[in-house]
């Protein structure tokens, strides 16, 4: 750039250098203080023994060693995998709902919004609804099971079914979320390609598989991201519906961490932080994959 002696132009060049940082600073500082630095602090605390009030004692890997011997940790880990696997069902279910609703008939807009309803409601309310739904004696679901099988099952009090019951409650809003992503995707299809495929006699399943789904790939990607993250973050429903019970059988890492660090079981901040770090590392695997894909997309722009 040629040097320009005029002060106004000089300021303008400096302005271009300063402006991005000035615009960025307020948000970035907040994000640094409340998100990025706490991650590092948590990792640091996970090497300490700390009750949240007194002095911290460095214990090295002791929290992690203890975690490896903790049965609840393995129950939580197993349940997290179950959440992850079953939660992904929200994607095909959401797609099915979107295909069902992607018509142009009278009142369809209202139907779409009402189908989306569960996502707008707080998970606390969803949890209470399903607790009521599953309640023995008067819950609609238990009545249905009784009517079908003749025997009563208290889903949330039964170690065999409790996690499935909670995941089912979580799938309700998550399916609605995926549905709305796919409905938008379906609105943006390339019609010429579809018509061309129809000319070639592609119908129904084959058309969906080879023409529609590839076009829906961006929606599927976002649905994957939000569903995987949602599954691993699951906390509210477990807390509301069972608090990890009965006998810790519906425990997940996020709730286990909270219970260890901040509840009547004691204030074991170091141990809780170690659990959080494990969950963080698991999620980082997925986050890294997502970000790598996003970087690839950025490059292609």
């Amino acid at each position, binding site marked *: 750039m040629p040097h320009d002696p005029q002060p106004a132009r000089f300021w303008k060049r400096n302005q271009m250098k300063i402006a991005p940082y000035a615009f960025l600073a307020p948000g970035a500082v907040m994000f640094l203080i409340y998100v990025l630095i706490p991650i590092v602090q948590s990792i640091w605390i996970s090497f300490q023994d700390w009750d949240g009030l007194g002095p911290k004692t460095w214990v090295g890997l002791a929290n992690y060693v203890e975690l490896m011997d903790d049965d609840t940790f393995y129950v939580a880990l197993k349940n997290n995998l179950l959440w992850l696997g079953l939660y992904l069902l929200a994607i095909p279910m959401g797609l099915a709902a979107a*295909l069902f609703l992607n018509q142009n008939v009278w009142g369809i807009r209202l139907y779409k919004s009402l189908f989306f309803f569960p996502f707008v409601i707080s998970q606390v309310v969803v949890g209470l609804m399903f607790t009521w739904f599953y309640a023995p004696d008067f819950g609609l679901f238990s*009545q249905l099971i009784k009517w079908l099988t003749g025997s009563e099952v208290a889903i949330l009090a039964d170690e065999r079914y409790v996690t499935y019951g909670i995941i089912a409650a979580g799938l309700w809003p998550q399916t609605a979320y995926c549905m709305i992503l796919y409905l938008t995707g379906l609105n943006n299809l390339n019609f010429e390609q*579809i018509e061309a495929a129809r000319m070639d006699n592609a119908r129904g399943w084959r058309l969906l598989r080879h023409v529609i789904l590839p076009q829906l790939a961006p929606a599927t990607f976002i649905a994957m991201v939000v569903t995987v993250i949602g599954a691993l973050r699951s906390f509210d429903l477990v807390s509301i519906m069972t608090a990890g019970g009965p006998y810790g059988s519906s425990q997940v890492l996020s709730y286990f961490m*909270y219970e260890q660090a901040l509840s009547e079981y004691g204030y074991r901040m170091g141990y809780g932080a170690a659990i959080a770090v494990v969950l963080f590392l698991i999620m980082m695997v997925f986050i890294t994959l997502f970000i790598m894909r996003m970087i690839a997309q950025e490059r292609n722009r």
Partner: protein
Amino acid sequence: MFPTPIQKASAPARLAYQIALPIALVIWLFPLIGVAVTSLRPASDLAAGNYFGMPSSIAYENYASVFRDSPIGWYILNSFKVTIPTVIGAVGLSCLTGFALAVYGFRANLWVFFAFVAGNFIPFQILMVPVRELTLKAGLYDTTLGLVLFHVAFQTGFCTLFMRNFIKGLPFALIESARVEGVSEWQIFRHIVLPLMRPAIAALSVLVFTFVWNDYFWATVLVQGQHAMPVTAGLYALNGQWVAAWHLVSAGSIIAALPPVLMFFLMQRHFIAGLTLGATKG
């Protein structure tokens, strides 16, 4: 259009579709309908075992008693005190960060952007102990301001992703020509870009409102007492008191769910635009 428009199908198929729609909707919303009906059922019905039949009368009384005998009105007020400043703060900050990341090609640009994106996906638990500690030390534990500050910081991550992509979609020539005219960077932001960001601001406002209103985790971690408790944590506490008083639990649930639901219905188009940005612009 996919699937094939139903108008092209046979008359019986069209009729079947028209019948299937409301049936599917009722099945889908069954838990919600059940709770809504229970919230209007008199306590005497539940005592008499009338859980599923028609309510013997419509008990608006349940709602009145929830407001009269529990602090739910106060909890709702707290939720507003947390949610509204958060919306303003997070959307405001992300207008700035989004502009910075979309318009300027400085060196760390992509890194900063992906830090915001990644921060958005991490588990809350990795932040819990330090953020609680920070809030305690700042004297903001058990206050709505403590919640607001955290939510603003965290939501800024999501909002920045959204704003940056939105501004990238605007015609850059507008900014270029203003620069040639000698308009300052701040003026460009304030008078050229900001007015064009209205749809993004609307979409994010509705979305952040819903996310923050529905937050439960931070409401339990950063608040202990009634005076600052938002309605999600409050409802859970009340659920413990109303043991098996399902008519009250149901009425409370409906009350707590109503503000984001109304918001969604009033601003539906913005809401969906917010959720699906990125899915549409691929």
